[in-house]
């Protein structure tokens, strides 16, 4: 056996091959470990321990919810300079919401999309909204020929307008796609997202056949005086960066008996909303008396959002 080969290393001096390899591996290990724990050194006031350890919305007790809401309100004050109130109205028993839209009288003015933008604290630079209004060619329902960027007086000749938002499917593909159950259908039919539980994988966005879900690529920018202070935990509170969001039928409004913001903004009354279980409700009359249809019926998503023409 020959003498082990010696290496001359700085600081350590003369070492054998085995020791040199060990030292190299140890250095690599320490570096990898430092890189792995690096996010912990970026821990800021925005990343709160309580929030990090928060349970799923449906597992929170009433007191825990309140603590979360108070923390989010403080957060809104710090980050947006706005005094907001976050509430959590619960679903009413015996209520199933549904929405219908009269395509014969929709003029495509986008006032619904604008109202949604304001009501739901959307990002101002992207002018985000949960509603996309398509200008469609009369004679068919072909979204490939639809345009949601039109910028000319409406209604234009030979066109009709089709606002599309979350259809609140009874058999929602987005809910099934979510790997962490951060999105689900409430007992009143509203499909919601727990923004604190969402991991931002965007599977739901890919699963939705109606392109109704939006991703917060950036932290939403809203001037303090434009923040809508009446906020719901599951609906219009300002969403953090990196989570999904969607139409909630203005949950914070409708569960208190009010109309959704898009309906109130509609100047022509093309939008009808209400409790389908109530036989005397407006929505029920529309479903019973108008020839309603749903988008992409063949997918079996069973939307709660209906469209109809007067003639």
């Amino acid at each position, binding site marked *: 056996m020959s003498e082990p080969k010696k290496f001359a290393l700085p600081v350590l001096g003369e070492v054998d091959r085995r020791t040199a390899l060990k030292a190299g591996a140890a250095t690599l290990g320490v570096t990898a470990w430092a890189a792995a724990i690096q996010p912990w050194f970026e821990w800021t006031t925005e990343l709160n321990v309580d929030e990090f350890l928060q349970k799923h919305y449906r597992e929170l007790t009433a007191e825990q919810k309140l603590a979360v809401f108070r923390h989010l309100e403080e957060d809104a004050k710090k980050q947006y300079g706005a005094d907001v109130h976050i509430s959590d109205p619960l679903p009413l028993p015996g209520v199933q919401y549904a929405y219908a839209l009269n395509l014969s009288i929709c003029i495509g003015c986008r006032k619904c999309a604008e109202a949604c933008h304001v009501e739901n604290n959307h990002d101002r630079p992207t*002018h985000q909204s949960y509603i*996309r209004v398509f200008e469609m060619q009369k004679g068919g329902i072909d979204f490939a020929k639809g345009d*949601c960027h039109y910028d000319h007086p409406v209604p234009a000749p030979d066109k009709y307008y089709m606002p599309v938002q979350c259809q609140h499917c009874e058999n929602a593909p987005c809910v099934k796609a979510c790997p962490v159950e951060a999105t689900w259908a409430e007992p009143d039919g509203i499909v919601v997202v727990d923004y604190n539980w969402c991991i931002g994988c965007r599977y739901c966005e890919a699963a939705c056949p109606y392109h109704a879900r939006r991703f917060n690529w950036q932290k939403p920018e809203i001037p303090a005086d434009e923040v809508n202070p009446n906020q719901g935990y599951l609906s219009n509170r300002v969403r953090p960066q990196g989570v999904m969001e969607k139409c909630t039928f203005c949950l914070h409004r409708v569960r208190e008996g009010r109309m959704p913001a898009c309906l109130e903004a509609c100047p022509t*009354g093309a939008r009808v909303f209400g*409790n389908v279980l109530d036989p005397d409700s407006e929505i029920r*009359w529309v479903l019973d008396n108008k020839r309603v249809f749903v988008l992409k019926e063949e997918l079996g998503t069973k939307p709660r959002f209906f469209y109809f023409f007067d003639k």
Partner: protein
Amino acid sequence: MSVEDPSPPAAARPPGRLLARFVLLALVGVALAVGAVAAFGPVRVARPSAEVALPYTPEPKFAVEIRKPAGPPVFHTGIKDANGKSVTMACAECHKTREPNAANRLGRPMAFFHQALKGQHGNLACVACHNSTEANASLRLADGTSLPYTEVMQLCAQCHGPQYRSYQHGAHGGMAGYWDLSKGGRTRANCVDCHNPHAPKYQPVQPARATNDRGAAKETGHE
């Protein structure tokens, strides 16, 4: 290969197999009996599940208020008084002395007065809707009854029945307020809030700004 019957004669069969047959037959019998009872037996009344709530149909406590027009229209003279307020005149100022021309129709230029009034609403005569017998301070239904200006929707409904029916059921005309009338009221637009009675076609408007999010990005024509 043997052509003989592979099964041994009955006498030679082990008693265990016979027992198994009996057990199997008994099972089939029991299953048939259970099925018959389930299918033709007494019907059990399903207990209402505690989880299924009755439909929420609250008693309305607040009213649905339909906005009303201000009343008989006034004629803007275009003259301003000493205080800078524009001078207006009631229809009756002229019409109490001057008989309206029953032959005048909307869409036909007027020789005297109302020259600025332009519109398109079928081929209606002025007196089809305006009551000339009351110095034009009221409207006139098709059967000749007088109708105050505030009740104009009744007049419109005479011809536009389907729209009025939709309106009555909340499927036409803007509204704001509560879907749940036990928690708050609702206000609704009337016909002439949106439709100029002389030119009822909804006038084109400039739409609000579109979003520029990624999902709505314009097709770039990629394959």
